[in-house]
């Protein structure tokens, strides 16, 4: 037995040795032509600020212009490492975390050399050395997990979709739920949508399913059930959810949502509400309380203040008199939302008077998707010229405003946004130092997850969620939808979730 163990250990050691030898540490080119510009790497990690626990920032040079790429990474302790295979720079996780550890609170210096692809005039490509850039490593970690829905950016029909969770320190992505199991027959299948967690934890969470067997899959203290929040007095079941940070109540909007398809507008799709209200779902009593049900105005996207004392939400402003009552397909560009809040009394589950928080309409804008920072000082939201579905609006950006005097006086999050592409669905990490958003900035069609470091009212340059293969997001034909931070993974399996549809 002992002999076998020895052999096994030896084999494992050889295997590990072999695996470690697979890492490519190329030599820096002996001669190269200096180029006074930053390398055109994808994803763009030049001069970004990253958390001290992020997965390796693998990147690549464009394969149509370059044949090879070498990167030399220098840490403040004087260590240098080189990486590169083909046009890709893929850093092993163990190396990367050593690099991060040595650079926390400081910066990593990255020098990149690119060998140009052969052309008709040049038989052999030449090596170019680009201006070095830095990656700043913040001391504040990012929440270890995020979850998102992976979906084709489709119109009406839907195909295979899933809610997945990603461990941000590594490249591990696992499924929380997919609709294949419940969707063997599309006429009986489901579309999965909005998911939400209570206070970044996963023991209390929910997601919706629509169509056949539709309802809300609710996890209450780790126990899975399916509930139907539709009542005779609500216009739909719950749609956009927000768990109260401490109590077992969930604020939700109820929506009668429609889509329109543009014939020429580059926005392509318009998602709008014919009607929307807000409800409060009390898990203990399975009761639905109407929070607001103004038949002439639209209330949507509830979110709680971190102390749970206020419910923030968006509400449309009345249309000009001449447009009132007209088909929304002709008035949608005039529908604008402001941000409001109401105080909440947890023992009685009652709400106070409505207060205007942000008047977007007076600036001919529309504000949606409010999110309060964990310290309660800042409010993030998405803003576009009109409507409620900014992820489809090319002019949509994320804005931040102070909520109290403790916020920094000069707030600037412009580095988070892209120019001319939709940026939407902002959220805060649990320590309030990382902002996450969904953005179509890479091609205007496929949403990707971006992070930005936030400190003292300033957001640093946003960077794309790293992938093991830096080319992944070039080919990946799914959008990342509703990215949410979590401090722990969802532990319930796909199978366990599926059982609530068959039981």
């Amino acid at each position: 037995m002992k002999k076998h163990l020895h052999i096994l250990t030896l084999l494992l050691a050889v295997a590990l040795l072999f695996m470690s030898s697979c890492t490519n540490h190329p030599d820096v080119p002996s001669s190269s032509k200096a180029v006074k510009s930053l390398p055109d790497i994808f994803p763009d990690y030049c001069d970004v600020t990253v958390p001290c626990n992020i997965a390796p920032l693998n990147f690549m040079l464009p394969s149509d212009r370059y044949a090879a790429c070498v990167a030399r990474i220098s840490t403040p302790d004087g260590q240098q490492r080189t990486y590169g295979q083909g046009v890709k720079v893929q850093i092993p996780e163990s190396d990367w975390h050593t690099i991060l550890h040595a650079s926390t609170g400081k910066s990593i210096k990255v020098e990149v050399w690119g060998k140009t692809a052969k052309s008709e005039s040049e038989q052999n490509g030449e090596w170019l050395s680009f201006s070095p850039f830095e990656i700043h490593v913040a001391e504040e970690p990012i929440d270890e997990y995020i979850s998102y829905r992976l979906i084709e950016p489709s119109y009406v029909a839907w195909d295979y979709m899933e809610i997945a969770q990603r461990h941000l320190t590594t490249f591990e992505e696992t499924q929380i739920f997919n609709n294949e199991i419940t969707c063997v027959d599309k006429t009986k299948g489901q579309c999965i949508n909005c998911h939400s967690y209570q206070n970044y934890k996963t023991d209390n969470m929910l997601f919706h399913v629509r169509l056949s067997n539709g309802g809300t899959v609710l996890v209450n203290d780790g126990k899975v059930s399916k509930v139907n929040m539709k009542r005779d007095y609500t216009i739909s079941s719950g749609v956009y959810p927000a768990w109260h940070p401490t109590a077992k109540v969930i604020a939700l909007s109820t929506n009668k949502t429609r889509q329109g398809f543009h014939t020429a507008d580059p926005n392509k799709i318009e998602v709008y509400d014919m009607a929307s209200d807000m409800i409060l779902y009390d898990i203990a009593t399975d009761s639905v309380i109407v929070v607001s049900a103004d038949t002439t105005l639209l209330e949507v996207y509830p979110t709680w203040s971190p102390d749970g004392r206020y419910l923030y939400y968006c509400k449309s402003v009345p249309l000009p008199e001449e447009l009132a009552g007209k088909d929304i397909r002709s008035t949608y560009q005039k529908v604008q939302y402001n941000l409001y809040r109401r105080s909440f009394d947890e023992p009685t589950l009652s709400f106070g008077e409505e207060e205007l928080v942000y008047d977007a309409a007076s600036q001919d804008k529309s504000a949606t998707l409010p999110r309060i920072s964990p310290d309660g000082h800042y409010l993030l939201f998405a803003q576009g010229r009109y409507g409620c579905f900014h992820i489809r609006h090319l002019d949509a950006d994320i804005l931040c405003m102070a909520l109290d005097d403790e916020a920094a006086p000069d707030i600037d999050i412009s580095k988070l946004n892209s120019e001319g592409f939709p940026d939407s669905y902002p959220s805060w990490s649990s320590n309030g130092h990382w902002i996450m958003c969904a953005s179509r900035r890479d091609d205007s069609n496929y949403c990707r997850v971006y992070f930005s470091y936030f400190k003292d009212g300033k957001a640093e340059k946003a960077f794309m969620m790293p992938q093991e293969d830096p080319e992944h997001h070039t080919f990946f034909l799914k959008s990342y939808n509703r990215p949410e931070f979590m401090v722990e993974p969802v532990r319930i399996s796909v199978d366990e979730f599926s059982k609530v549809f068959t039981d």
Partner: protein
Amino acid sequence: MKDLRFLCTLLFGVAVVLFFGMAYPHHLHYQEQYQLFLFDLGYVWEIVKLPGGLADLLGRFCTQFFLFAWVGATIIGILLSVVQLLTLRLTDWGRLYGLSYVPAFLLWLFLLDENALFGGVWAVVLTLLASWGFDKLRCGWTRRILLVIAIPLLYWMAGPVCIVFFLLQAPRPQRIPWYYGLFILLAVLPVLLSFYLPVSADKLWFGIHYHRYPTVFPSLLWSASLSIFVLTLIARGLHHWANASHRIVATLCSFGLVFAIMLAFVWKNTNSKAEKVMQYDFMARHQQWNRILETINAEKPNNPIGVTVQNLALAMHGLLPDHLFEYNQNGISGLFPSVERDATSPLPTAEVFYQLGMINVAQRTVFEAQEAILDFQKSARCYKRLAQTNLINGDYEVSRKYLTALQKTLFYSDWANETLPLLGDEDAISKHPEYGRLRQMAYKEDFYFSDHTTCQMLQNLFLSNTDNRLAYDYLLAYCLLTGDRETYYYVTSIKQ
């Protein structure tokens, strides 16, 4: 005798090739257009990681050749002949030789369904190959150990139809203890896997990718598979009688009888109406406008897709308003069928939108068509069209994604390589005969597309560019079909 049998197999194979090449070619095109076979390790892994994966992969690999119907027909002919030959080798059939064709004929019947996937046929072939290989092994421990390994391996490669392999190993009396052992192994496999794979238990029992409709039980495939075992049992049971004298005559008779009966079944179950619809779709896809006119002049189409394609071809030749009523019409649905979420109607409808210059609408329709593919596959045809619509719209990076994927295909890579340099090259696009024309025809002013504003849509399109002859013809046809004289005179006055 051996030569005679070879001739019979050849005759069968040729019959299959001729049938699919001549009577069913567009069913093969239909199959090809609802998949995207990529020469990419990630794609291959996604397929082979599930039970039945190798059969599925081989099926998809072969299906890409269905783009060329005769090549597809030949592949089917060869594979069905292989099924017959492998069935023949299982036992001595004697007078019952004709029965060795039954499984292959049942697979032929299975393939008449346009949603039957070719991976199912490969699953049977792999199962028969495994049985044939095992019959060549001597009895003993090596064979027994290999058998235990083969059961899960074959299940993973071919899927649950491999039960036939297990049954074929079972009936010999000396193998009874093994029989129970293997039975337990085979029965436990799907149950165990259902805990670990994101696949429902019934699919693990009946097959994941034998049929495009996940809820359809592929009964003909299973009949073909199980018939191998049942017929072998019969042949073995009637061994003495079957191997009596006059074997040549009896062999020929049994072959003729089975061939005639099964061929009659095949003919009876041939869906020529669907073939006709698919033919119109195929011709529209490849913009064979002259061939469409020849076809409609030979036989006027009486199905909605046929009428849609007929009107498009007439419009492409500038004949639509003048010759509209010489052909069958289907009201305004004959111009623009409403977009259904099914497998056949969206793509020809999208072709009309595309040719008219309604690029966003065409893009949406193609996207929806792809999303409607029931087994979650992607479509090379849809990818190609989405690359084109995004290119015309100036969404070059999105177009690049589709083109880069098409570069990994066998038959679309050349086109993708030719199209990639166009991205971002405004001058080249404006000079391109198709993309330049469609850019000029596109809507200048935005409004919401709706199924119920066809006249308004056409009018806006025409007013965006009064040189858009296709929009003009469609608008006139719309007025003629609805009796809208006011718009008719208004439009003709503008044109004059």
